């Protein structure tokens, strides 16, 4: 899921950095006040830990293996803000040392795997586990499900960021400049791998480690369990929740900004603007490639663009709806269980 440099346009990379920046800022502030200096070694060790467990290849049913990201495990134990920092640190080191994920793409990768995954995982785990005891098996199931869904939300966001590239960024001849496949290819291709293998690995690792911690080290799970700490406001205030939702829904829209201009321009206008490039072979190229994109095609292309972005927004909204519905369902079930026992 790590996006390398070269897949995203610089405009998208910049937007994703801008989207990640306030979370980084808030996380650094939050972690300072919450845990004082204690947080520094804790986050560092957890980042190192998530780095190392990515090497644990877990045998999965079906004869394959997979490895986990560990973001949901981090969020269950450290809370979402510290988890954002820990996973971001791991991503930065991966980008610099292994070329796994680009340096310009760090903003996008952090947004998908550190920010979205931490928050979705955290609140899902809280919802699904309700007020269950720290050592209940429901928490194991909640952790595994939260990991599975959070990973797929991250994969969906990645697919959207990649899939909008060919709609927004093409050269004068209409060839895609960056990631070449649209949303209709990127989303199924990403989700196919993550709904099956990667999601299973994340769920299995997260669930099993939480189960192990319940047996061997339950106090580690207590801080952010939401069970006995109902009064402690660890979660986001309502305004931040709405802001986060709005941001996630708006992200693909924001990315559209440089592209709308492209879509609205006719080819003649483009040429009139010159765009500063007329390389030696331009005439030859344009005579070869301007033909498939006559004038009337441009407005036609604008509609699918909007349709794709709309579908992307609907996709994200759907995932959130599922999350909300699951939370509601679990809450109902818990209430029913509680009334039955009393």
């Amino acid at each position, binding site marked *: 899921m790590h996006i390398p440099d070269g897949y995203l346009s610089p405009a998208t990379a910049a937007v994703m950095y801008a989207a990640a920046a306030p979370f980084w800022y808030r996380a650094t502030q939050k972690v300072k006040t919450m845990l004082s200096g204690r947080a520094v070694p804790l986050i560092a060790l957890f980042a190192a830990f998530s780095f190392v467990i990515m090497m644990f290849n877990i045998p999965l049913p079906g004869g394959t293996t997979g490895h986990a990201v560990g973001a949901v495990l981090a969020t269950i134990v450290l809370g979402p803000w510290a988890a954002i920092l820990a996973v971001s640190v791991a991503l*930065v080191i991966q980008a610099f040392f292994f070329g796994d994920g680009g340096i310009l793409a760090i903003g996008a990768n952090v947004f998908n795997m550190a920010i979205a995954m931490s928050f979705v995982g955290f609140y899902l785990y809280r919802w699904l586990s309700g007020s269950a005891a720290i050592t209940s098996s429901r928490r194991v199931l909640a952790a595994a499900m939260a990991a599975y869904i959070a990973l797929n939300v991250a994969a969906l966001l990645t697919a959207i960021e990649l899939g909008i590239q060919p709609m927004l960024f093409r050269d004068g001849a209409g*060839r895609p400049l960056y990631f070449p496949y649209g949303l209709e290819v990127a989303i199924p291709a990403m989700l196919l791998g993550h709904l099956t293998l990667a999601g299973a690995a994340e769920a299995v690792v997260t669930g099993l480690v939480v189960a192990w911690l319940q047996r061997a080290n339950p106090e580690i799970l207590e801080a952010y369990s939401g069970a006995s700490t109902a009064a402690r406001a660890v979660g986001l205030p309502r305004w931040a929740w709405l802001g986060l939702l709005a941001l996630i829904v708006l992200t693909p829209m924001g990315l559209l900004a440089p592209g709308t201009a492209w879509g609205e321009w006719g080819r003649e206008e483009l040429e009139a603007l010159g765009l500063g490039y007329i390389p030696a072979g331009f005439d030859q190229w344009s005579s070869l490639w301007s033909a498939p994109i006559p004038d009337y095609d441009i407005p036609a292309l604008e509609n699918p663009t909007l349709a794709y972005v709309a579908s992307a927004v609907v996709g994200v909204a759907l995932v959130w709806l599922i999350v909300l519905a699951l939370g509601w369902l679990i809450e109902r079930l818990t209430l029913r269980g509680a009334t039955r026992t009393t």
Partner: protein
Amino acid sequence: MTWAGLVGLFKRAGAKSRLSDLTGALEQSLFAEEIARRKGLLQSLDPRVKLIGALAWLLAISWSQNLAGIAALYTLTLPLAAASRVPMTFYVKRVWALIPFFTGIIALPALFNVFSPGAPLVTLIDSTSPRVYLAITLPGVVTAAFLLLRVGTSVSIAVLLILTTRWTLLLKALRVLRVPQTFVLILGMTYRYIYVLLHAANNMFLARQSRIVGRVADAEQRRWLAASAGVLFAKSYALSDEVYLAMQSRGFRGEAQVMETLRWRGADWMWLAVFVGVAVAATWIGS
């Protein structure tokens, strides 16, 4: 080596030496810093110059809409690598040996008319009944080339930066980008403790390996791996407590202090101008 490459190595290596192979490969790429200690051109420069230069080049690659311009930037990294005494086969192979397996697979379908309609270069299937048409198209080749060249050149620049710069110096350089000191401190500590945890994990694997004979059932393997991950986690949790106490006893009060030892020299300014100049030129040519 990319992360995915390491994981691939992990999968290929036999059950016996999987993690120790991996530890070896990781240590080589993460901790050796052997090339960074050599006397060479890039090693002699201020890390801030290299960081800004690398970012400028990455942006130029990202902005450029000209294949030749991106290829020229890649070509320019070769004499830089040579002047920095980076083994050339290692430098070229480390990037290009793995790119085909990862980005190559993603770029492959774009070659064909299905995804990139346009004038055919090579027609592979052209049957009338049923109507099946498959051809490699010119726009497809251009799109795939852009993807491969952009990814390969970007990774090369990151590799060159990390090979010729010691991690501690690079962290200091991050301060010019206004990265918060706390974040830089965490990055530095993570780097150190990856090594510690990796060795702990390696020892667990070795201990287990020496106690088992034959094949282990998957479910059993899963349980063991989860327990190992749990143990490792508990270890790092306990270790972070100890590290915090050690930091406190050395005067840590939540604010990181770093000694500024970096100093700009004349050559640094010159090379900064060269790197940024090349990036601007490449962007201008490619726009």
